[in-house]
């Protein structure tokens, strides 16, 4: 279904949601950067800047409690964290490269054991995407098979129209429900043209060809030159919408505390370190190789999907200027 909405009505809609007590998350100024965070009013919404971190934290926070424990004598009392407590949430202004990563992550959090910390939030969240009309040098969604108005992962997708307002397309049942709940705010499309979409510079990559090379080149001297600059800071993984590695850590004393899940990164030197001191990925090129392999081979082998949406954040934050798109181009040429 297609409808349209004026900028003023969109803001009214957000304020109405907030008045109803609905949790609304969108890009907003947070300290020195723009992040996806709960909005206090529609005026908080920032629509002209890609948030520093991705939307994955709406489902998979930087850190979250898994349980609480308290010791009484020799007994331990456990307090469960019920994933069902997560509030209904509407995500506004999610960029297509972020929204597209959410169904990709569904695969790992739902295969076999169901991680309800991710899945319960997922079930209670409506994602309203916003198509991009500008791209910067790091954007490469089009190179990995997506586009600036890709509907993947969005329940509703907003596309800016010429002269203001947005064309709105529903992409899922959640989107349809949203339309019918808030029908007064939307109107029928009047034929106004949408604005020209962003045009990321990088040409589409042949991901099949890249994967075919990865299939046969676990051992290759190219990894040394590709990863020679990597300092293992992990920033790329933390800003990535698809990286999902985590650690489980107890915080507190033997008497009382919490067990929590934290983002982790395969670039860290201790990530795979055994208690014996043996480390299967003992050198940085091996760790960087795992990053590329996981995104463009292993995840594909396991779930038939690519663990990268071309958002370009890892390129923007890398302190030593490693360009993953450039790495892929280099592999494609081999």
């Amino acid at each position, binding site marked *: 279904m297609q409808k349209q909405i004026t900028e003023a009505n969109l803001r009214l809609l957000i304020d109405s949601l907030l008045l109803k007590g609905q949790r609304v998350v969108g890009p907003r100024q947070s300290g020195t950067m723009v992040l996806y965070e709960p909005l206090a009013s529609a005026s908080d919404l920032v629509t002209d800047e890609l948030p520093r971190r991705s939307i994955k934290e709406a489902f998979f926070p930087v850190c979250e409690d*898994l*349980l609480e*424990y308290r*010791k009484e004598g*020799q*007994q*331990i009392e*456990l307090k*469960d*964290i*019920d*994933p*069902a407590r997560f509030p209904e949430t509407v995500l506004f202004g999610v960029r297509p490269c972020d929204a597209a990563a959410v169904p990709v992550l569904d695969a*790992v*959090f739902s*295969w*076999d*054991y*169901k*991680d*309800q*910390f991710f899945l*319960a939030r997922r079930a209670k969240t409506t994602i309203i995407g916003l198509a991009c009309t500008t791209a910067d040098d790091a954007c490469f969604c089009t190179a990995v098979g997506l586009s600036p108005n890709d509907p993947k992962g969005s329940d509703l997708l907003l596309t800016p129209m010429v002269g203001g307002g947005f064309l709105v397309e529903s992409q899922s049942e959640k989107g349809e429900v949203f339309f019918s709940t808030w029908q007064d705010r939307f109107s029928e499309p009047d034929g106004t043209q949408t604005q020209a979409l962003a045009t990321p510079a990088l040409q589409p990559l042949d991901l099949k060809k890249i994967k075919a090379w990865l299939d046969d080149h*676990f*051992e290759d001297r190219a990894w040394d030159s590709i990863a020679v600059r990597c300092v293992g800071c992990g920033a790329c993984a933390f800003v990535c919408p698809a990286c*999902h*590695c*985590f*650690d*489980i*850590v*107890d915080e*507190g*004393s*033997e*008497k009382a*505390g919490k*067990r929590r*899940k934290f983002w*982790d990164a*395969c670039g860290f030197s201790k*990530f*795979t*370190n*055994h*208690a*014996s001191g*043996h480390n*299967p*990925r003992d050198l940085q090129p*091996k760790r960087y190789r*795992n990053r590329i*392999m*996981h995104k463009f*081979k*292993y995840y594909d*082998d*396991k779930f038939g999907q690519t663990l990268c949406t071309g958002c370009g954040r890892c390129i923007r934050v890398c302190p030593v200027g490693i360009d993953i798109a450039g790495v892929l181009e280099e592999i494609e040429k081999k």
Partner: protein
Amino acid sequence: MCDRNANIYLPYLATVEEVIDETPDVRTLRLVFQDEQLRENFSFRAGQFAEYSAFGAGESTFCIASSPTRKGYIECCFRAVGRVTESLRRLEVGDTMGVRGPYGNSFPIEQFYGKNLLFVTGGIALPPLRTLIWNCLDLRDKFGDITIVYGARTEADLVYKRELAEWQERSDVTLVKTVDPGGNGPEWDGKVGFVPTVLDEVAPSAENTIALVCGPPIMIKFTLPVLEKLGFGDEAIYTTLENRMKCGLGKCGRCNVGNVYVCKDGPVFTAKQVKAMPLEY
């Protein structure tokens, strides 16, 4: 209210029933689940692992070292080398700890019926095979000859010393124990030499035999060629890999060897499967 379907990270609570010092730094804990129903119903297969927690320190991954044929308790065995294992070692009889599991695949024991079994292991790697050894000894008439080749750096580093003595006494088990050169005391009644060398010397027959190997990477590296020389095929050799894990559930992204998730696809693999993996374990 604890719902383990909703929260897959929630451990069961277990009481430490017995503490056994295997070596100066290796300890066995015998655990009894506090939930009576679970104590009766907890079932696992030899080869599976669990996440054991010392609350306040975190979780560590070890195999379940006791046999599934021994009901009412489970055992884990670990060397105290880090934050969690040091905390686990501080637990006393009656203390409470956490257990998540059982996870991973297991030894296909039914496929071993009617065959001879050759266990080859070193040091702290005996516990992952000890579960299977007792499982097989408790079903003794289902198997042919059972041979155990076990080595450690020194006499003091041998774990399960009382069980080694028991196996040595049994007429239906052949135990070949060895220590590295220099690791033997004046009373030592076993062999002296590295496991692969001793295995080569003992030269057990490969005919109708399954080899079960677990040890440090260096031991595995030198043991596989010896087994090959003895005539063992890649699919007659099983091992259990022990990569670092956190979740044990196929999510946290840590234990993979290439595209193989040790926690889900393993930890038990045939030599054929291991040879197909990149060198990342």
